[in-house]
């Protein structure tokens, strides 16, 4: 392979893809540089080889199958409807999530005081009949003292 500074331009020259002044410069160079001239001939030979292959013609059944796809065209109106339905479904989903979330927040907290504790009625003070002897004696003294203070 040629390592001349023009070597990488020979490929583009072969394809006729160089600007006119560049193309003229490469053309002139090919007349003077045997390495690049040989490179150009190699590329032409490879191109002829590739293009000489007659690729198979498309079988009729392949064309027929491609035609069948034409009957399933998604039209613009169908696409717009699909987009609208998708947006509507997304909005409904968001609304449901919002409703569930809001309902969840109004439920009593797990660590709050149990209902029975808040509403339980305090057990009435023990009655005399059930109180111990010491308790009844203490009450008698308390009651008596309160009566004497009232007489003074």
């Amino acid at each position, binding site marked *: 392979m040629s390592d001349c500074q023009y070597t990488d331009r020979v*490929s583009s020259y072969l394809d006729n893809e160089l600007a006119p002044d560049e193309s003229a410069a490469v053309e002139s160079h090919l007349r003077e540089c045997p390495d690049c001239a040989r490179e150009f*001939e190699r590329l032409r030979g490879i191109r002829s080889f*590739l*293009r*000489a292959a007659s690729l198979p013609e498309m079988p009729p059944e392949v*064309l027929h199958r491609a*035609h069948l796809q034409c009957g399933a065209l*998604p039209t613009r109106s*169908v696409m717009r409807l699909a987009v609208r339905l998708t947006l509507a479904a997304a909005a409904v989903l968001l609304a449901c999530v919002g409703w569930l979330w809001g309902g969840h927040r109004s439920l009593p907290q797990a660590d709050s005081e149990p209902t029975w504790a808040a509403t339980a009625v305090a057990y009435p003070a023990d009655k005399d009949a059930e109180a111990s002897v010491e308790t009844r004696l203490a009450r008698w003294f308390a009651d008596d003292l309160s009566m004497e203070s009232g007489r003074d």
Partner: protein
Amino acid sequence: MPASDAELVDRARRGDEFAAREIVDRFARELYRAAFSMVGNAADADDVLQETFAGAFRGLGSFEGKSSLKTWLTGILLRQAARCHRSRGAHKTVTLDDLSEPARRVLAGRASIPSSEDVDLRMDVMAVLDTLSPDHREIIVLREFEGLSYDEMAEALGIPRGTVESRLFRARRELAQQLRAYLP
């Protein structure tokens, strides 16, 4: 007066089945040959072509008309061919066997090939293409079989024009290396 590509696309977008069929009729043959060159066999070429049109009709809304319809379709075909290659497994290094006599004559710059030797030559070309890396095979097919310009290849591949030039240069070097025994 046949409808322009832009008119066909516009009508197909609105659900005109006849416009879609016209698009298929206009491009299927070339695209099939490109697909065959890319994947090397008729069955995969058929699949790639069908997937190309299926993708094109689904994505008609994304065609902006900045490139030609052919270039746009070719870009879709290349992606489908790459998918086909991936589904086959990793690219293997292929050693080129002896080329047929017709192939040698062409490479040596001698006379044209009789049609009776076409099949041998085609098999040799497919074998040579199979030795290339996927990127190099792709760009060789676009240039030598599809006849796309550098700007069209840049559009189809989504790469800058400068990259097209350098990639094509390296692809041809790789080809020349594979065929060195047969080149003058």
